[in-house]
């Protein structure tokens, strides 16, 4: 590989596109094969519940290790050193919430969506509408983050710098993604995640070993290299906490707020929750989380090496100057190590990552619309034709895909790690309190659920709108306007506790809980009696 790479100078867009094209062709073949067995709603939404725990665990890590995790964290570590590392710790520890409190109980009580669990013992229509609303909002923020990253990547990898050319590529990525979802449903999407996760983790492992080898497998020497190359960018400060967030009391508070959203958001992400329905039993759901925790944890250890490696071997100045800024640290490191071939591989993997994560989000959002809103609210649970629900889901997927393409073109250039952090904040505020209350609190009732979902969602979104991330700062979304009055860029420290309090208050004010329904839910959640079974083909 090295000898081949040395023969070619610089970046080769054609090589990058060829490697990515090969990935698309292979995954499309897999998706078409997987689609043969996709007939019922359980097939389309939950892959017939036929994946094993380890398979689903790999797919979860594929879903979770998004472009923000890979490109964003590596870039944050390269530029901000230690403070970038804190992201990955929050993202990992968060999985314990999913493992201990949510995954198995959710698998036992739900069918396809988060709304199934939240509405289990409540009035169906209002709670499902609320669950679907927050699912769509979280998925939208997350989608924007992924698609926004695609633009910078295109510029870096294909040499397309014009906004029009980038828009065409973003649209192409979106269309391929829609094909995955329409044809393959959850089964096809899961296989795309598995293939992508395997490529991503293997690629990151190879680069990690490569970087470490350059420093004699000595972590301290690697850190020293990053300090030396980054002398003008803080030098020693790269190793210590506080470079990005330590400036003022406000920025310190902002950091705590971010940390809370990261650790409490994961178990409220609808596209992650939906993955637990693709396995046959709660025990397999547990195994899948265990696999995911190991893979994700090991991957984040790789990004620590890759981030400091990029800082040492590429240097902060070159990273900042590259198109895509911080997000280009990992691809530039690949180029510095293995030349165009490794760059082409990593670039293709990064594209595949965006493609796969967007596909996972789209199927989640479309399932929530078709199952919660169409089948259970509009049709009141009486869909005459079983295929109608899946048909609605497919149409929704196309609409969401189109929205993602437009959003990606508009949001092109926004900081992707930040956008993902916002998605986590909404998930931690609107979803997690409601999920925990409905699983563990006997008295929780319909009004409590509505208060915590809508309250958490509204407070979180309002604080974001009036935060310095949206207006009033040069780095804001609208730098020319200034209507910011909330001092923090991350709303979690306010919106998460508020959502918990609102859920409690709504419950106390609201009517009596349905005790028989709670008995059914609790027994089913803890024992797995009556849980949805795998589809036998």
């Amino acid at each position, binding site marked *: 590989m090295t000898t081949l790479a040395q023969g070619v100078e610089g970046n080769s867009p054609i090589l990058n596109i060829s490697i990515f094209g090969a990935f698309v062709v292979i995954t499309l073949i897999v998706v078409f094969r997987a689609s043969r067995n996709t007939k019922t*709603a*359980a097939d389309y939404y939950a892959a017939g519940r036929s994946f094993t725990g380890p398979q689903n665990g790999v797919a979860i890590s594929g879903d979770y290790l998004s472009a923000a995790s890979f490109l964003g964290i590596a870039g944050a570590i390269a530029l901000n050193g*230690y*403070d970038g*590392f*804190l992201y990955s*710790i*929050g993202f*990992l*520890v968060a999985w*314990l919430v999913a*493992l*201990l*409190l949510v995954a198995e109980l959710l698998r036992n009580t739900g069918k396809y969506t988060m709304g199934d669990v939240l509405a289990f013992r409540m009035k*169906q229509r209002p709670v499902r509408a609320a669950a679907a609303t927050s699912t769509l909002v979280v998925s939208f923020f997350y989608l924007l983050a992924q698609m926004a990253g695609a633009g910078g990547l295109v510029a870096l990898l294909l040499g397309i710098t014009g906004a029009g050319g980038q828009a065409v590529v973003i649209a192409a990525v979106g269309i391929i993604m829609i094909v995955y979802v329409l044809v393959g449903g959850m089964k096809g999407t899961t296989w795309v995640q598995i293939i992508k996760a395997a490529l991503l983790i293997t690629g990151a492992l190879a680069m990690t070993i490569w970087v470490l080898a350059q420093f004699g497998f*000595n*972590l*301290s*020497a690697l*850190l*020293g290299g990053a*300090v030396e190359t980054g002398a003008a960018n803080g030098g020693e400060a790269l*190793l*210590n*906490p*506080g470079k990005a967030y*330590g400036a003022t009391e406000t920025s310190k508070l902002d*950091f*705590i707020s971010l*940390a809370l959203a990261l*650790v409490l958001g994961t178990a409220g992400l609808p596209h992650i929750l939906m993955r637990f329905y693709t396995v046959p*039993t709660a*025990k397999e759901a*547990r195994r899948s*989380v*265990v696999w995911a*925790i*190991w893979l994700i*944890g090991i991957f*984040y250890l790789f990004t620590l090496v890759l981030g400091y490696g990029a800082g040492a071997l590429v240097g902060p100045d070159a990273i900042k100057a590259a198109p895509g800024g911080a997000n280009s640290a990992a691809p530039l490191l690949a180029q510095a190590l293995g030349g165009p071939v490794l760059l082409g591989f990593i670039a293709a993997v990064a594209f595949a990552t965006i493609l796969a994560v967007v596909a996972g989000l789209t199927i989640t959002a479309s399932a929530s619309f078709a*199952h919660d809103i169409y089948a259970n609210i509009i*049709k*009141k*649970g*009486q*869909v005459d034709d*079983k295929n109608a629900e899946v048909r609605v889901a497919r149409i929704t997927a196309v609409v969401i895909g189109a929205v993602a393409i437009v959003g990606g073109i508009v949001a092109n250039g926004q900081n992707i790690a930040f956008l993902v952090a916002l998605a986590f904040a909404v998930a931690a505020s609107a979803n997690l309190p409601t999920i925990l209350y409905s699983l563990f609190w006997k008295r929780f009732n319909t009004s409590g659920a509505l208060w915590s979902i809508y309250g958490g969602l509204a407070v979180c979104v309002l604080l974001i709108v009036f935060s310095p991330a949206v207006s009033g700062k040069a780095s804001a979304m609208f730098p020319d306007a200034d209507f910011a009055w909330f001092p923090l860029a991350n709303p979690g420290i306010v919106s998460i506790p508020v959502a918990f309090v609102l859920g409690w208050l709504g419950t106390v004010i609201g009517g009596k809980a349905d*005790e*028989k329904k709670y*008995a059914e839910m*609790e*027994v089913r959640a*803890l*024992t*797995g*009696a*009556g*849980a*949805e*079974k795998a589809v036998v083909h």
Partner: protein
Amino acid sequence: MSTTESQARPPDNADQWTEVQSSAEFVELRRRLRTFVFPMTALFLVWYLLYVLLADYAPEFMSTKLLGNINVGLVLGLLQFVSTFLITTLYVRYANRKLDPLAQKLRESVGEDQG
């Protein structure tokens, strides 16, 4: 339940669920689950927040070098990884030994046998 497909599930007799819920075995299963997951959640959240607060408000302490360029902050950060892996492993062992057999038994008593 307003679901859209008919499926095999135990007779929808609401009183049966209430009976199981108040049975001694179910109360024991709930106790076992909660006495593990609640304290463990509190533990890892406190440990995580302690780490975050240290990084935020005690940067000098976190910047203390231990070995070459490796400082306290990096070691504590890596220990967050270790504790996450450890808690995961402990929970799986606990669930396999203490939760699954009891859940299986209760599931059978509801008239269902499923691996």
